């Protein structure tokens, strides 16, 4: 199945997308003026759908709400548009790399502790990790928000769903999945780029978290690849697939 990210707009406005698809689309939305425009028009349309089913609320509601707002502090006004953009990029990153963020936080905490002892060295290391995380985030965001980004989704044998976002203009793909089975420590998921012809290139080792979720990651350079495959391999990974693919996505 091959889909264009633009087609997510309707399901997005109707709150019908899965969490993964939603962040994919929101990443795209931040960069796509036409999509933002379309979403705006659709939102106004759903207002009309809502008005058409209006019905009087229970009589006690108004008093309850008015009492409640007397107890709830309002959030501070918004900052400049620049800040908003930074925040939304940050949000995308938070969604993309939850574990990396946790690792980063640990890293920073460690850096702070070490600060008193070897200030320069620790800060340097924390900064490097920050730079790496930022670079990974930007690379993923760049692919999913590319104008020609398209998503291919497939069902994984036994359990789960896998998606790749392909941008031919950037020559890169991003791989994401949910619901994959956990693996014993002796095994790993390995991603493959297949084609042109019969060539198969390893594209990275992947390990889902406890819930079977894998953060989206750059799965390498496209370079004429026609399909993406996923196999289960020994923990160290293999140079060529040793088992049958559990999903193959045609790019």
């Amino acid at each position, binding site marked *: *199945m091959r*889909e264009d990210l633009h*087609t*997510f*707009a*309707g*399901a997005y*406005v*109707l*709150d*019908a*997308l*899965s969490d993964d698809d939603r962040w994919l689309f929101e990443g795209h939305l931040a960069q796509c003026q036409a999509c*933002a*425009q*379309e979403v*705006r*028009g*659709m*939102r*106004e*349309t*759903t*207002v*009309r*759908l*809502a*008005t*058409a*089913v*209006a*019905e*009087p*609320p*229970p009589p006690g*509601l*108004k008093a*309850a*709400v*008015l009492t*409640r*707002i*007397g107890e*709830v*502090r*309002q*959030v*501070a*006004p*918004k900052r400049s548009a620049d800040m908003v953009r930074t925040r939304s990029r940050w949000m995308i990153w938070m969604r993309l790399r939850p574990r990396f963020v946790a690792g980063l936080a640990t890293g920073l905490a460690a850096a702070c502790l070490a600060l008193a002892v070897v200030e320069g060295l620790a800060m340097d290391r924390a900064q490097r990790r920050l730079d790496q995380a930022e670079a990974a985030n930007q690379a993923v965001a760049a692919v999913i928000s590319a104008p020609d980004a398209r998503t291919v*989704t497939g069902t994984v044998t036994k359990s789960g769903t896998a998606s790749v976002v392909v941008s031919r203009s950037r020559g890169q793909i991003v791989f994401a999945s949910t619901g994959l089975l956990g693996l014993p420590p002796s095994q790993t998921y390995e991603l493959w780029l297949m084609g042109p012809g019969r060539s198969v290139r390893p594209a990275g080792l992947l390990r889902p978290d406890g819930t079977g979720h894998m953060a989206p990651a750059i799965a390498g350079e496209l370079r004429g690849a026609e399909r993406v495959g996923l196999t289960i391999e020994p923990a160290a990974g293999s140079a060529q697939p040793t088992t049958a693919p559990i999903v193959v996505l045609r790019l």
Partner: protein
Amino acid sequence: MSRDTGRAEPARRSSWSQAGPQRSVPGMDMLLGRVARGDEAAFERLYEEVAATIYGLVRRVVRDPAQSEEVTQEVLVEVWRMASRFDPARGSAMAWIMTLAHRRAVDRVRSAQVASSSEQRSAHRSAEIPHDEVSAQVEDRMERERVRRCLGGLTELQRESVTLAYYGGHSHRQVANLLSVPLGTVKTRMRDGLIRLRDCLGVER
């Protein structure tokens, strides 16, 4: 005298034709702006404008009256709390509020979803706009008719995809299962359906 009345008639009608929810759109944006500055009187007026629409939608999605009331209250308090985050450049106040409301309602049903088959069957019922059970107080028959007519102008698959998701609170995956069509098809029907509705309803873009 009679000439005056004659002139007044069409004028009233033309304001009717832009009636419905848009009636108060510029006012709503301003009201929400005042709410953002902590104006409780403005919030009370905003309540009068939106509470019935929020409750009606939440009720359609959540169905249980007590839970619907709870969610409606949460939404209204959230509107108060987050009012400063409303950005008129990104859409109308009403769209902002109803987006909040729909998300809350959907979150409520998804988190509580037992996905029993009886619930799935009721989903089809929930996709219809009720003819009755709406008091005259909030009824805007023309608007209601227009929405009904425009929904009627969609293909069946478009209409079902849009209403099962919006009124039924179903995910696109659930909609695909309910309608026995592929996921990708549901996504495109939702988009096509909303675009066609938008054009039929003459929604400003």
